[in-house]
């Protein structure tokens, strides 16, 4: 009997070795951890339970029947992060370069289905050379099965992808279908077509890092939501993000003990908005000063920096924040900013995360580049996302809320629940100079009259009171009491229950 029990341990030990010591050393030499080491770091120590440890591929072509590794290049199972359940899979680059076979895909699909059934998030750690070519179309079918599961789970459970090595060709689309993609700097890359093929087909010469490294995807393509310096940091930060997220779309946001006064007054906010309306200030300061413990988990920090998105907590509960950033492009909304914020708003709405919108927006970015790039449609995405969102929505206008951009940034008219404005707010169709040029065209040559008109317009429209008179603003608040007001507003809205009419699904302007 004892022999049989020992045999299990021996088999486990063999499976845990993955592709063997030599390949593990080579993985380490690249600055990368192995799949199992990564899972150890991602999950609470001792909480990981592995499934399908002994799965083997069934391929016989190209001598594959001679080569078998238990687990077949992917480690799957479940565990906990701070005691909360999550399903995981981690591709093992030491086994066939982490390549995806039919059975490899089946293992992933199994945990995907389990996650969906249990209402637990799934986190995928990607490190794979691509499809296992020896298996041909079976590998492609495997990929597509994974995609289908990603799609069905979308909006039901949070899905997080971490790219910790190569991810090329078909492999990129599973991450692309998930809620968040994070990358590791210098050791991960993602692209559909690699540099070698590019060189032969289009004569373009580019390195893998330039084509699909973390920098490219966090600053240019916006494919990735964030990048980290190494595996350790990436996994620690995924744990941090996980603590912000609900387990599924019925669960509600997690609650945590907090060490911050809900009614903390911050006098320094009274001077945040500069006297001169053309000077920028850092919206991140406002976010940090109203969040519990100053903690802000920024999403897409390096892309479309003119809009900020990310998670904070208020009274221990997760809040999604969207804020215009006056430091970049004066906070104008452009196509990129719209897409970035729209996707974030929709994520929050999927998972019942209340939304806080901080507004200082002089308008949409003008120009042919924007118009030709379809800013109308991209801008509509953000508008749509806000209008569709049924979660509690609190808005604070700190300064400018001009024109179409006012309409987009979670105004009362798009179902904003509580809309505040600072006394420095200017809610108008446009700034004074532009407005006067249109309203008083005949006086344009007369500097004195124009100045008079501008002063008149500023007095009339560049304040929160015109909007407040009409009830478009619920209350004008002192900047210093923003945290107190906003936390209280979210407390009030806790039981908000709103649903849109039944539909098969909406038709967001893609």
């Amino acid at each position, binding site marked *: 009997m004892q022999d049989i029990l020992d045999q299990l341990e021996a088999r486990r030990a063999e499976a845990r070795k993955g592709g063997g010591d030599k390949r593990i050393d080579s993985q380490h030499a690249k600055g990368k951890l192995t799949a199992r080491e990564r899972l150890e770091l991602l999950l609470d120590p001792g909480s990981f339970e592995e499934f399908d440890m002994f799965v083997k591929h069934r391929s016989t072509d190209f001598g594959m029947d001679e080569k078998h590794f238990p687990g077949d290049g992917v480690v799957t199972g479940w565990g906990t992060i701070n005691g909360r359940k999550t399903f995981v899979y981690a591709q093992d680059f030491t086994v066939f370069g982490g390549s995806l076979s039919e059975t490899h895909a089946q293992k992933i699909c199994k945990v995907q289905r389990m996650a969906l059934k249990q209402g637990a998030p799934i986190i995928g750690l990607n490190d794979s050379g691509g499809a296992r070519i020896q298996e041909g179309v079976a590998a492609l079918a495997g990929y597509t099965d994974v995609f289908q599961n990603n799609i069905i789970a979308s909006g039901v459970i949070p899905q997080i992808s971490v790219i910790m090595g190569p991810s090329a060709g078909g492999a990129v689309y599973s991450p692309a279908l998930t809620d968040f993609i994070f990358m590791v700097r210098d050791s991960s890359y993602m692209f559909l077509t690699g540099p070698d093929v590019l060189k032969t087909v289009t004569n373009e010469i580019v390195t893998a890092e330039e084509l699909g490294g973390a920098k490219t995807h966090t600053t240019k393509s916006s494919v990735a939501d964030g990048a980290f310096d*190494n595996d*350790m940091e990436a996994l620690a930060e995924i744990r941090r993000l996980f603590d912000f997220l609900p387990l599924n779309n019925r669960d509600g946001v997690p609650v945590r003990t907090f060490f911050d006064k809900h009614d903390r007054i911050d006098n320094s906010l009274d001077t945040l908005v500069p006297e001169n309306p053309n000077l920028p200030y850092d919206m991140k300061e406002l976010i940090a000063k109203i969040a519990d413990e100053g903690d802000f988990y920024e999403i897409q920090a390096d892309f479309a920096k003119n809009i900020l998105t990310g998670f904070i907590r208020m009274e221990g509960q997760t809040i999604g924040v969207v804020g215009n950033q006056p430091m970049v492009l004066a906070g104008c909304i452009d196509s990129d900013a719209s897409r970035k914020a729209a996707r974030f708003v929709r994520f929050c709405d999927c998972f019942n995360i209340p939304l806080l919108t901080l507004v200082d927006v002089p308008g949409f970015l003008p120009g042919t580049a924007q118009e030709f790039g379809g800013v109308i449609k991209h801008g509509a995405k953000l508008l749509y996302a806000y209008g569709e969102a049924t979660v509690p929505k609190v808005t604070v206008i700190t300064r400018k809320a001009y024109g179409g951009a006012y309409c987009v940034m979670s105004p009362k008219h798009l179902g904003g629940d509580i809309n505040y404005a600072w006394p420095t707010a200017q809610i108008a169709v446009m700034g004074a100079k532009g407005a006067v040029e249109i309203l008083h065209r005949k006086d344009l040559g007369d500097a004195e009259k124009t100045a008079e008109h501008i002063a008149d317009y500023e007095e009339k429209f560049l304040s929160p009171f015109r909007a407040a008179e009409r009830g478009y603003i619920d209350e004008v608040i002192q900047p210093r009491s923003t945290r107190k007001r906003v936390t209280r507003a979210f407390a009030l809205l806790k039981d908000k229950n709103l649903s849109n009419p039944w539909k098969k699904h909406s038709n967001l302007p893609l």
Partner: protein
Amino acid sequence: MTKIKKILIANRGEIACRVIKTARNMGIETVAVYSDADKHALHVEMADEAVHIGPPPANQSYIVMDKILDAIKQSGADAVHPGYGFLSENPEFPKALKKMGITFIGPNPKAITAMGDKITSKKLAQEAGVSTVPGHMGLIEDADEAVKIANNIGYPVMIKASAGGGGKGMRIAWNDEEAREGFQASKNEAAASFGDDRIFIEKFVTQPRHIEIQVLGDKHGNVIYLGERECSIQRRNQKVIEEAPSPFLDEATRKAMGEESVALAKAVDYDSAGTVEFIVDGDKNFYFLEMNTRLQVEHPVTELITGVDLVEEMIRSAQGEKLSMKQKDVQLNGWAIESRIYAEDPFRNFLPSIGRLVKYRPPAEGVNRSGAIIRNDTGVYEGGEISMYYDPMIAKLCTWGEDRGVAINAQRSALDNFELEGIGHNIPFLQAVYDHDRFERGDITTAFIADEYPDGFEGADINSGHARKIAAVCALMHDIKEHRAAEISGALPNHKRHIPDIWSVELKVSNDEVYHYTADINGEEGLRTIIMDDEGDKAALELEVMTGWTPGQTLVRASVDAATFNFQVQPISEGFKVWHRGVEYKAAIRNPRAAELARLMPVKIPPDTSNLLLCPMPGVIVSIMVEEGQEIMDGQALAIVEAMKMENTLRAEKKAVVKKINAAPGDNLAVDEVIMEFE
């Protein structure tokens, strides 16, 4: 004698606030003046009333006499305190006030005229029997003449603006080329800062200490001295740390210097607070440098050791009262030190750093646990602005203790508690000086900073005892954080995360300087015993640690082995960024298995910027002195950037060829913007 009822303070910032405090204590009303840039400044808020005097540049507001005179009329003030700088040493100002029947809280104009001009004052000092430094007393026409005079005196020489002070318009030259360059630079700065470009040259005394005597006079011919202040810790003639008394002077020298100062003051009928500055050499020979006919920036240290409120004395003597004490009543008690906290980044060659004070939380004033007194004179507040238009001083942090050691220790802990964010500041540098053994011994000269930090400041030295304590407290903080994290809602009941008591701490100062510890935390709440195992051959050490820290706090107050141990933190991935005694650490706290894996992580080398000339501060390009394709030499001037009214010459660090120039004169650049690239 007329009692003053309402004082207008013709100044801004901390000194305006300082004067307001005393005036208020004396029951006198106060009037602030402010430029556009100071509309929301602290002095405006503190004063009973405030008058707007113009645009931000001082030469369009604070030093425009007519505007101040208008403000006086408007407010009905019957007296003016000039503070320091601005109009404080302009003799025309008290003259104009006199015509209006307004009391000037400062010395008589004759004294200001006599002492305000360095050339005249030197002559007067010589006549009064005060020894002076050899130098050229006449005005200098051009650079050629400057070089000739410098050669006559013998190098090194000091080139100074006649109307100068506070280090502006001052250069030291060791050869003809530097004399020529220094003359021009001083002249330009003098013109820009004081509207007076007269320059003079004198012998530069090597190994000098800067020691000054505080004098106090009344309108009845009485003058006393209130001991000395040593201000040898200077950077480019800008005082950084001042103390009273001087660790160098003996009673006899103090008395001699004091009496000569009194003699000089009496020679000009000095009738207010003033300071006689001396250079003292290694043999305690002292030479008269200049007399400042105003309240000095560093006056608080004298107040702390004498118990005299100098502003009150100035007000009293201005209203004609006799000095309330005689020389024999002056007792020096204990030791006081002042740190000037500047918005200057020591890691970027002390370049000014302007902007919003995102965080400004000075240490609590009053008596601390070791019986030391903490005093913080400031003109800013959290959410306020350090403006490019004025001196970048944030605060003057003063400590008093029974002896020098206590005062130094109080500085160390007060600086550890001083929270600043949003701008670069010199606290790390101040901490490094306080921990420097030469400073601790009092073995200092005005060249201390240049001698000890010849290649600039790269961070304070690490003390391994401190590092271990930081590691232990960080481990405990991380433990607190992780326990809170494990309490999140939605955890599987009965399957809560188990948190071990053993943490591995990696304390990193730089890629080359990393310390590893294992911290074994014992005990549940309150006092914990942490067994610290320093990796290496040292035996494990037990520390008794207690802290009330909760996540989100940036100031960590802990007790380690029953002694207070404070530092500042910011949460980062896997741990904390820590600031303590001028050192910045990155603490990563991991469970032992994670620590093992962490060692497999590659060390990332920061990108090489040595082939770029980066703009070291936000500022305007005044000129670009090279062209693309030009070969440049080590030390060659490449560009001039102006910020805070100071022209900063950027020089080549090595021989190179200019590949590309990305900026042009007039461009407004941010920190680290690329000015030019080299091949």
